[in-house]
């Protein structure tokens, strides 16, 4: 009997002894759990990120076109050349406008879904935001190429409605106009807005779900007009969600280089500049310096968002 007990104890597998050790030493378990992801993300991802940032402090030799490996801020000075500064301002401005427009367009959808949609309709609303969110980015851009093309549906629609003059008048405006919608800033803006809109709706809806109807009723009972209720009750409560959504719309617009390349005037955005400098020009330091700008802007943005409690709405 005793023998048997000893036997089983000794036969207790290596596995179960290990399990006991891990149970007694949660630190060890934690280290085991975290090692693979830290190795992957910490070394491959953060490592290459830092390597890239480091390169922005090198410069390129104008004559040989080779990278000089000595620390300098020369590349950053190059960033402030009017042509490059233009790119930075243009991209940031576009990101701001797209974000604001996305917030305006998304609000009614999010608000309706959060407050009025029930049961089956709630699911339908949810899926009808999810499907565009997840459908292929390139297909969405392609769809807009079809829409904005000269012989495409939008021009056709304007013609059928006898409103061609309106479109032409709009296109003759400076800055936002152009030869056709597909080569104007308006076109770029529309595609950005379309592609990132679902990223705004979902966090906004999540924030609005938490606004209790009784707050709005109380506000109305106390004599607030609908616009006062919106301004003083609804909007402040939805703000964390709006900020959470804007992290996406802002960051994605800052870094995109495909949309402005396919639809828009030929003037460059940050992403295109990075792509051009690292590719044919081989000017990795300048490309790296360009990427530092969105990193800093996003870092600042995320810090602000955190202070506003936006991460709880993600």
């Amino acid at each position, binding site marked *: 009997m005793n023998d048997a007990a000893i036997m089983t104890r000794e036969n207790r597998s290596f596995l179960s002894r290990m399990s006991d050790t891990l149970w007694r030493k949660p630190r060890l378990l934690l280290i085991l759990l975290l090692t693979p992801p830290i190795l*992957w993300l910490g070394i491959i991802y953060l490592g290459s990120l830092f390597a890239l940032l480091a390169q922005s402090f090198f410069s390129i030799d104008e004559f040989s076109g080779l990278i000089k490996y000595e620390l300098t801020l020369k590349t950053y000075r190059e960033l402030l050349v009017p042509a490059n500064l233009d790119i930075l301002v243009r991209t940031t401005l576009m990101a701001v406008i797209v974000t604001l427009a996305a917030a305006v367009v998304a609000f009614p959808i999010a608000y309706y879904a959060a407050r009025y949609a029930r049961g089956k309709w709630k699911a339908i609303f949810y899926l009808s935001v999810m499907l565009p969110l997840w459908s292929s980015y390139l297909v969405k851009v392609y769809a807009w190429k079809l829409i904005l093309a000269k*012989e495409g549906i939008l021009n056709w629609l304007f013609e059928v409605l006898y409103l061609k003059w309106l479109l032409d008048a709009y296109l003759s405006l400076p800055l936002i106009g152009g030869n056709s919608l597909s080569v104007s800033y308006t076109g770029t803006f529309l595609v950005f807005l379309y592609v990132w809109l679902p990223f705004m709706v979902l966090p906004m809806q999540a924030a609005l779900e938490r606004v209790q109807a009784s707050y709005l009723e109380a506000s109305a009972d106390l004599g607030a007009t609908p616009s006062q209720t919106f301004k003083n009750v609804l909007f402040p409560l939805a703000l964390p969600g709006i900020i959470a959504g804007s992290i996406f719309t802002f960051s994605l617009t800052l870094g995109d280089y495909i949309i402005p390349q396919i639809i828009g005037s030929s003037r460059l955005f940050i992403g295109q500049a*990075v792509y051009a400098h690292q590719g044919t020009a081989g000017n990795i330091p300048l490309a790296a310096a360009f990427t530092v700008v969105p990193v800093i802007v996003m870092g600042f943005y995320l810090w602000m968002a955190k202070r506003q409690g936006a991460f709880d709405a993600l």
Partner: protein
Amino acid sequence: MRSDQSNRASTGLKLAAIAGLLFMHLPILLIFVYAFTTEDKTYQFPPPGYTLKWFAITWNRPDVWEALQLSVKVASISTVIALVLGTLCAAAVSRSKFFGREAISLMVILPIALPGIITGIALRSAFNLADIPFSMWTIILGHATFCVVVVYNNAVARFRRLSGSLIEASMDLGATGIQTFRYVVMPNIATSLLAGGMLAFALSFDEVIVTTFTAGQQATLPIWMLEELVRPRQRPVTNVVAMVVVLVTFLPILGAYYLTRGGDQIAGSGK
């Protein structure tokens, strides 16, 4: 908003919501119309006629099949890697509090919070510095990195709901760590992992920005499409491919939705 009408939406709100939804859906539906057009030189609307012949032509295109194959391979392998790394991370972060916990979750989110072009160019210059030749595996390296966050987000929500006493009970009853994982932890987190995996697959299948930097000569399906967007040569074939891609990506999204609905966090709400 007066309280006596508060459970009825105003007409203005309804119209704005409907307009917003139409704006989100009509462009995708348009793709479906173009897949059947007889016009093959321009994007003429309305289409002069309708035909099914482009489907047959697309079917017989080896380059489309090769791109599709590569995309599926890359997405599958990246998903598996992301599942392992994401689950480990989620388990660690949700089970205990430790120094640097915030840093870990930030590190997981970073690849998706930073613009894709930064991830792309960072990896590319790192591959160049390390003399790693571009191949399918460099694409996977990039994809797995940003897919981790999707799995992580899904798994971490479920881990938080999984009560620690279940695991304690299992261990008290003499189960080994592996048995506990297999019979207690796994059944509890399986659907969230499946959902996370599907979303990771969809994310990788569609990714183009990072891929342009980490691919050599290989073309994934998005790269193939990008090529067609920049220099349109095969408009009708592109139309058909675009339509098929839309239909194919809908499946994992619907699947992930049905797997996690009713939970505290529905999968896919954060891409």
